[in-house]
């Protein structure tokens, strides 16, 4: 009785999480111990290196799973499978790009660089924990690690009252949604007797469906928590305000990391723990997907601010990702994986460009301000145009392949009406994207707008990250096979 059998821990499988979490903690200690404030360049370089470490370990895990098959570690709290490895790869790429994109911004705004990077690294580790969680308790902790760091990141721009307002709004609403999510976990535990996803699905297989009230209440509350996190209509009301108020590089990071973590966990819970309840959750996800697709696209058209427009664009993207969940097939999951990766890259880079344009105080991203930009700064204008067209789903960009594969999956599943709604919403969204592109190339206002932010337009690391994202967007738009195969193999090795 005195002997305690500790669970076996596969550190190789946990490496992406450990890199980001311990990397963040180590940076915190270093910046506290150093006599002088750490140079911004050093911190950015460190953060990129940590991101690369996580990326390489995630790829190694992916390779290992391909050979050895999916398993779980630390008393089956963490899933070691292709799916979590693929999400870890995505999140690592997000970390690398976000570090580069924020570098110049933090210097211009005189924001404490280590604080930003510590929070971003730990937040990213939360997204990977969510994706790899094989237990609802671990999933919740991942969600909180992701969210709490994001609340603080949103408040990082001390010179802007909007930033503080955004953080408070995000914090209070996020706190509520976490509480609802936790209730969902408690109800699910009450109905199934476990928080472990495999045990839950085994219990459901034995059939508690005779009196499913508690179970369905748990499922419903879990869904509300997830829908809030991924900003699905009607749980999206916080999104435009928070995206607008948060420092722009943080908005980009938030748009990518929170969506990746939220969707990864949603996919895993619905498709591995509760496939038996698909007749119950499919109608809910279906109707939320329809509302999100239409709401995101229609509200995007009426925005006068680039950040708010991109917020609604991210809501529209969430709708497409939900379409992949409705499909509920391995084709749907791998389409969602492809979508998450490509969306993260394009969204981050788009917000990176908005950072350059939002003025010296990062407080004016009005669409009119961008008028004629492409004529003064052809490179930035062209990059922005390509990224916006990719988000719109124009062929020869990743956006097209992503939207196409999601719709293909849902058609294969037999939900033709949803596919038609998705395509119609994409058509509406194209109008908003093209209007922004047209504004960039307008000729008449060139002389009238005062620049005054040349500093931000010559931000080397950010320009490099944006260029890299544009290359990725076009390359995988023309040769998507490798990335699509990566996703398919990942899903083939999903822990059942």
């Amino acid at each position, binding site marked *: 009785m005195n002997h*305690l*059998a*500790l*669970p076996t*821990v596969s550190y190789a499988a946990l490496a992406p999480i450990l890199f980001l*979490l311990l990397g963040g*903690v180590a940076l*915190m200690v270093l910046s506290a111990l150093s006599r002088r404030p750490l140079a911004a360049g050093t911190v950015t370089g460190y953060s990129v290196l940590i991101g690369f470490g996580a990326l390489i370990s995630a790829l190694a895990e992916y390779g290992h799973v391909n050979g050895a098959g999916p398993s779980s570690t*630390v*008393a089956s*709290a*963490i899933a070691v499978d292709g799916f979590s490895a693929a999400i870890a790869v995505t999140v690592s790429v997000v970390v690398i790009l976000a570090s580069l994109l924020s570098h110049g911004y933090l210097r211009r705004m*005189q924001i*404490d660089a280590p*604080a930003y990077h*510590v*929070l971003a690294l*730990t*937040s990213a*580790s939360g997204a990977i*924990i969510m994706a790899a969680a094989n*237990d609802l*308790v*671990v999933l919740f*902790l*991942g969600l*909180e*690690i992701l969210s*709490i*760091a994001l*609340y*603080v990141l949103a*408040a*990082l721009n*001390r*010179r*802007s*009252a909007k930033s*503080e307002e955004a953080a408070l709004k995000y914090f209070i609403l996020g706190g509520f949604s976490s509480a609802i999510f936790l209730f969902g976990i408690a*109800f699910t*535990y*009450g*109905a*199934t*007797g*476990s928080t472990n996803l495999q045990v839950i699905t085994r*219990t459901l297989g034995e059939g*508690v469906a*005779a*009196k*499913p*009230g*508690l*179970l369905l*209440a748990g499922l419903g509350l879990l869904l509300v928590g997830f829908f809030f996190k991924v900003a699905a209509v009607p749980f999206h009301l916080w999104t435009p305000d928070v995206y607008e108020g948060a420092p722009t590089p943080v908005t980009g990071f938030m748009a990518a990391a929170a969506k990746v973590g939220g969707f990864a966990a949603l996919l895993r819970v619905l498709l591995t723990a509760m496939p038996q309840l698909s007749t119950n959750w499919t109608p809910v996800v279906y109707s939320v997907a329809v509302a999100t697709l239409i709401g995101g696209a229609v509200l995007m058209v009426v925005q006068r601010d680039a950040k708010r427009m991109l917020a609604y664009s991210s809501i529209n993207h969430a709708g497409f990702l939900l379409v992949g969940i409705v499909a509920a097939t391995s084709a749907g999951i791998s389409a969602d994986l492809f979508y998450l990766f490509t969306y993260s890259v394009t969204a981050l880079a788009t917000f990176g460009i908005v950072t350059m344009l939002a003025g010296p105080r990062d407080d004016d991203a009005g669409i009119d301000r961008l008028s004629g930009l492409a004529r003064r700064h052809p490179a930035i204008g062209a990059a922005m145009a390509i990224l916006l067209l990719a988000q719109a789903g124009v062929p020869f960009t990743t956006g097209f392949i992503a939207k196409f594969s999601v719709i293909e999956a849902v058609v294969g599943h037999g939900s033709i009406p949803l596919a038609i709604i998705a395509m119609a919403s994409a058509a509406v969204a194209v109008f908003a994207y093209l209007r922004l592109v047209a504004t960039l190339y307008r000729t008449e206002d060139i002389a009238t707008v005062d620049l005054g932010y040349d500093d931000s337009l010559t931000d080397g690391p950010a320009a490099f990250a944006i260029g890299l994202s544009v290359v990725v967007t076009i390359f995988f738009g023309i040769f998507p096979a490798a990335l699509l195969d990566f996703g398919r193999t990942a899903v083939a090795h999903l822990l059942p």
Partner: protein
Amino acid sequence: MTSLLATVAIPDLLVFLLGALLCLVGAVSILTVKNPVHAALSLVMTLFGIAVLFIELQADFLAAVQIIVYAGAIVVLFLFVIMFLGVDREEDLAVEPIVGQRPLAAVLITALMASIVALGLVGHFEVGPATQTGMLHGGAGNVADLGRSVFTTYLFAFEATAGLLIIAVVGAVVLARRNNPDDHVAESQVEELA
């Protein structure tokens, strides 16, 4: 529900009713008393009632933690903030910021309560009181059981909690620190907005 009541011994039922009464009376008076300090003290009553319910469920350790952490530390923090901000007097609650807010809240709360009761009646529970699911490990030590599961089944969750706490501390420090020379800009902006 009748079958559930039939299996519960009378002393257990009395303790449950007492605990439930404490919780409900405390919760209602949080909403009805005018003085915020009294509301915080009513919260202690609710939390104490929950501790009694934990004991009834044989979760002795949780009951102790409930008293020490919630009824102790957290309510003290509440009182500290209330007194620090000087709101320890009556607030005018007669004004409704949104018209029809209160009646709507009453309707929604009633619906919520009704659905929770309905869930209790129709739901299938895998877990429950010892009278339903049997004694926990034959009634052996609670602390030992918890300690064991923290270092076995929930080892990763335990370690992740450590990470979460670090981030919470870092976040609090980042938000609280105001040594930026440009901070007066933020304050003047806040005034402008107000």
